[in-house]
């Protein structure tokens, strides 16, 4: 077990290396001189001054040296300074990261609470009207633009019924929870349809296996067979899909945060693009990627506890 986890962690290293290289490349691909971008509000600089600033920032060094410095700074938690707020980029991101995590985790919980029962019931009632209804629901789930669904929820529950706040984040715990409802429900739509479909097909597949038939032939009750024998095995592929789709949930969070004015790192990234605050943009992208890599690692480790067969492959 320890060996397996160790191997997973070691396999992660080249990926992290690749991801940092990609964001480093992104920084250098951005058109325009970084010094000029940084000084866009300040007075016009002479050639000599620009050269001196470039020297000071190390922008005249060869790229490999710049890359090494970039990575060492990252390891120290230094991501440079934001042009817009003049504060540390790492500070800006760390301040907003918890809000994005709270939003995505709440959405994942909602997805599991809604999609699992719907998918499993529709598998057990295959071919009935319940199944048709559930699959129609899933089809709409993958066809509705999530951000527009959010706007609709805003219209209905915010403006029309006036039950919930539409934008921003509440300060007190109760206000906070209330302001979290609409964004997290909206975000959960991104995975709801997919996970319902996967839950259904994975349950159907397990139900057709020999050992389930054996359990039935033994005379075990339907409920016992369905929930004790079939369900645990059906959950494994669902787990893979949910953690594999964590990335698309994070991507969706960018849009949803923007729609609801939720102060997470997704909105930070989008706002920074328009403010030409590129260090914030690239570092947010990096933080997103690291979150995805960590979730995949956690999934791999969790997986080998749940399904011991994995370890021997």
């Amino acid at each position, binding site marked *: 077990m320890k060996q397996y986890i160790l191997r997973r962690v070691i396999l992660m290293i080249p990926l992290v290396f690749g991801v940092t290289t990609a964001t480093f490349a992104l920084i250098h691909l951005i058109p325009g001189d970084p010094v000029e971008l940084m000084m866009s509000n300040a007075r016009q600089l002479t050639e000599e001054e620009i050269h001196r600033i470039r020297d000071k920032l190390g922008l005249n060094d060869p790229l490999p040296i710049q890359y090494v410095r970039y990575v060492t700074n990252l390891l120290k938690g230094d991501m440079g300074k934001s042009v817009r707020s003049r504060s540390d980029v790492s500070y800006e991101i760390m301040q907003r990261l918890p809000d994005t995590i709270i939003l995505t985790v709440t959405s994942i919980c909602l997805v599991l609470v809604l999609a699992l029962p719907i998918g499993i019931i529709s598998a057990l009632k295959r071919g009935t009207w319940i199944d048709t209804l559930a699959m129609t629901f899933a*089809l709409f789930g993958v*066809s509705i633009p999530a951000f*527009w669904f959010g*706007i609709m929820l805003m219209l209905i529950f915010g*403006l029309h019924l006036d039950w919930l706040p539409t934008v921003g984040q509440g300060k007190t715990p109760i206000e906070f929870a209330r302001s979290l409802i609409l964004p997290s429900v909206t975000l959960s739509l991104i995975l709801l349809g997919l996970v319902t479909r996967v839950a259904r097909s994975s349950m159907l597949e397990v139900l057709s296996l020999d050992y389930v038939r054996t359990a039935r032939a033994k005379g075990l009750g339907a409920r016992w067979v369905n929930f004790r024998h079939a369900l645990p095995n059906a959950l494994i592929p669902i787990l893979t899909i949910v953690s594999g789709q964590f990335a698309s949930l*994070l991507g*969706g969070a960018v849009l949803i945060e923007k729609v609801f004015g939720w102060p997470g790192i997704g909105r930070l990234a989008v706002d920074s693009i328009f403010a030409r605050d590129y260090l914030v943009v690239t570092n947010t992208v990096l933080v997103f990627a690291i979150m995805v890599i960590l979730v995949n690692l956690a999934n791999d480790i969790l997986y080998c506890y749940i399904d011991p067969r994995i370890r021997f492959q």
Partner: protein
Amino acid sequence: MAEHIVDLAADAAFIELTEPKSFFYKATRQLLGKKQAILGFAVLLVLVLAAVFAEQIAPYDPYKTNYANVKQPPSAAHFIGTDELGRDGFSRLIYGARISLMVGVSVSAISTTVGVALGAIAGYFGGAVDMIIMRAVDLFMAFPFLVLAIALVAVFGPSLFNMMLALILLYWIWFARLVRGMVLTLRETEFVVGAKAAGASDISIIFRHILPNVFPVVVVQGSFSVADAILIAAGLSYLGLGAQPPTAEWGSMLSNAKELMRILPVLSIAPGVAIMITVLAINFIGDALRDALDPTLRN
């Protein structure tokens, strides 16, 4: 695309009398036997016609501002009202079909072609090409798709063209991975080994023996990717990273309508419904295509 398949059906009906039933005949028969598919094709046909003949259908010029007639509620003259510049919402909606369909189809078509070509090369020849492509795939998979698309648009600069470029750059990888995996299996099959033993060239093996087997899955996934690209493009345009104002595009119309949400909710509702109908129609077709073309996925 819709007309093409209907043609295929006519051909198939003719062939039935003369030839033994082909794969395409059976697939088309299955496709047309599905109510969902018919509905999907019908809706898509309407949308395509609306996009092509937008000039003739739209009651007003979608870019014509009219300050005497701003923020009008829905009426017989303006089905979904007018926006803050007095532009007719319904006309803008019709022109919006152009952009969405164009983006969806071209992003999907180009990235599918590139992805299939590179995936086939990687899977068939292996070696350095394969390694580079697969490492690129691993890397891109580590980023949330939308985040990477946003980052690329930030690099290129926000515009409709740059957004399409960014989407193509990200989508092909997905197809390359899919096709590579299939080619790896096909390469070892008896008919390919046999063709090789018979002296067939690599090119002819790829085109005559491998690609035809990849084709059904690619068509199915390609059709789903049209729907996906439309959704993502609308989202990016909503953020202001895709189609730029004053372009009549559904995503940017939604972002525009946000200011008027209280007084004119219909402007926030209609473009989303249009996206949903388009995506649903394409997903209907995709589902039916999958059932018809991909025997391994048939229930």
